[in-house]
């Protein structure tokens, strides 16, 4: 079995026609290896080439150079699509069809046996909370409802690999939470997820691997825990130890009172503070807990993008 769910070699796309090509490549020599069992967040500013990459992986557009493999098969292999679920950015479906009819066509294309089709369609409609709209025409649906139907069609075949292009766009906060739950459920069920989004806080919560793309080039790629650097300490002081809080407060870069009456103080990397905290931990082990605080994905993302801009 192939170790990577997605693999690309020098994948390049230059848009244009036979006699006229754009000067700049939308995607330039992308080398990507996404391990099995991961939830991969694909990040980048607008026009970075994220959607181009996904379209190349789904064989909707043809590469100008290089090759891509999905689930161990070349991306242009039609049969491999039976094992993939895909949600496009801003999905658009045939508006004259009812939700059930549309999913039924998808189920037929996915070769779901006719005896199981109806049951599975209602299962996915239930997952995306759209059962009551099964017999409504897609043309009358709001953007959020279309997004939900898009998610339903992408998980209809219980895919091995789920490719989601901006899945959180168009959903209200409640819908976003539901989608995050769906992705987590898919992850638990062993589905590999390739997830492209602008909402970095959500990516940080959902994904274990990330890749950042800018101007068609991959800036960095890897496990989130390896990429985000340690930036200091997070000290949690239990309730009733205000003396400790007062001692450390002046050095803290931020502080917040917890609902149980305790405090959380965040320190930047500082040898003296670290030494004091270590001493305190020995003296009053039950009064505090502390752990290294990591850079968040948003800071990391902007640092990466800024470094490319400087290079240019």
């Amino acid at each position, binding site marked *: 079995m192939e170790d990577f769910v997605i693999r690309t070699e020098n994948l390049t796309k230059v*848009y244009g026609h036979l006699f006229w090509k754009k000067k700049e490549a939308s995607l330039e020599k992308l080398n990507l290896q996404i391990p099995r069992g991961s939830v991969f967040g694909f990040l980048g500013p607008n026009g970075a080439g994220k959607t181009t990459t996904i*379209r190349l992986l*789904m*064989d*909707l*557009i*043809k590469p100008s150079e290089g090759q891509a493999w999905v689930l161990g098969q070349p991306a242009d292999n*039609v*049969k491999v*699509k*039976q094992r*993939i679920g*895909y949600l*496009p950015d*801003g*999905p*658009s*479906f*045939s508006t*004259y*069809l009812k939700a059930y*009819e549309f999913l039924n*066509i*998808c189920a*037929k*294309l*996915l*070769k779901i046996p006719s005896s199981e089709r109806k049951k599975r369609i209602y299962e996915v409609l239930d997952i995306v909370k759209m059962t009551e709209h099964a017999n409504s025409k897609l043309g009358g649906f709001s953007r959020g409802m279309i997004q939900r139907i*898009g998610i339903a*069609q992408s998980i209809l075949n219980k895919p091995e690999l789920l490719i989601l292009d901006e899945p959180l766009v168009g959903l209200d906060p409640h819908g976003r939470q539901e989608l995050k739950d769906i992705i987590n459920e898919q992850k638990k069920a062993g589905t590999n997820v390739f997830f492209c989004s602008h909402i970095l806080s959500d990516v940080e919560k959902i994904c274990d691997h990330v890749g950042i793309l800018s101007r068609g080039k991959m800036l960095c790629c890897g496990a989130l825990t390896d990429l985000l650097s340690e930036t200091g300490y997070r000290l949690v002081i239990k309730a009733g130890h205000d003396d400790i809080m007062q001692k450390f407060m002046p050095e803290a870069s931020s502080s917040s009172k917890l609902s149980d009456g305790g405090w959380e103080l965040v320190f930047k990397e500082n040898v003296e503070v670290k030494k004091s905290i270590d001493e305190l931990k020995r003296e009053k082990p039950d009064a505090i807990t502390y752990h290294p605080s990591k850079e968040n994905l948003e800071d990391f993302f902007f640092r990466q993008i800024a470094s490319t801009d400087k290079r240019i």
Partner: protein
Amino acid sequence: MNEIMAIAGSTWRRILRMKVVYFLIVCVWILIGSAMNYDILSLGEEKELMIDVSLLLNTIAIALIVISVTFEIPRELHEGAAATMLTKPLGRTQYLVGKFLGSVITAIIIGLIIAAGFFVLFYMVFGEPLIISLLQAHLLIIASSIPMTAIAVLFSMILPEMITPIITAIALWFSFSTSHLAKYGFMKIIYGGVLPDLDLFNFKSAAMITAGWSYVAMAAVWGAIFSVFALTLSSLIFRFKDIK
């Protein structure tokens, strides 16, 4: 085959959900039926007028259904509905063939409904039962939907979205006028190369060479062969096309 029929079914469903289709059928029946009232204008030839009107209107109705393909395919490609289908285990050729079959089946059924309406009206007005040569004439027109749709699919692949319906309509007019255009040699190059010779499906031409069931069958087979050629060309173009 199931994949092709799934796409054909969705195309067929789309056309059937267009209220204008039912309006078209009713209008055609009314126009055919009203031909009997033109006895003064037709100098007593109202029966011939009714036959001609029915054949002409059936041709136009089928051509309109076919031209709707030239809206449907580019729109689906442009709006992303086709992309969703093509990310399922569905080949690009299967998608095109599905669209083609869906439209052809719809055109055939609508053509048959119009023809049936004509025969009922003809019987009611003139008291004459089903005339075989007239049935053959309508079947020839219905069979012409096969190459017409193939040419519409091909043009959807090679022309910009905005002009495809217009160019297709002009091409169909050229294709139905081959016997007249044959007088001008250079025209043969146009319709002899890419466009189908739809004059083969014209009953009046066929009558001159003693039309019979064999002629109807041969014309239908020729239409099917032309369609295979046009769809193969469309498929080759579509294979390398970037889809939004």
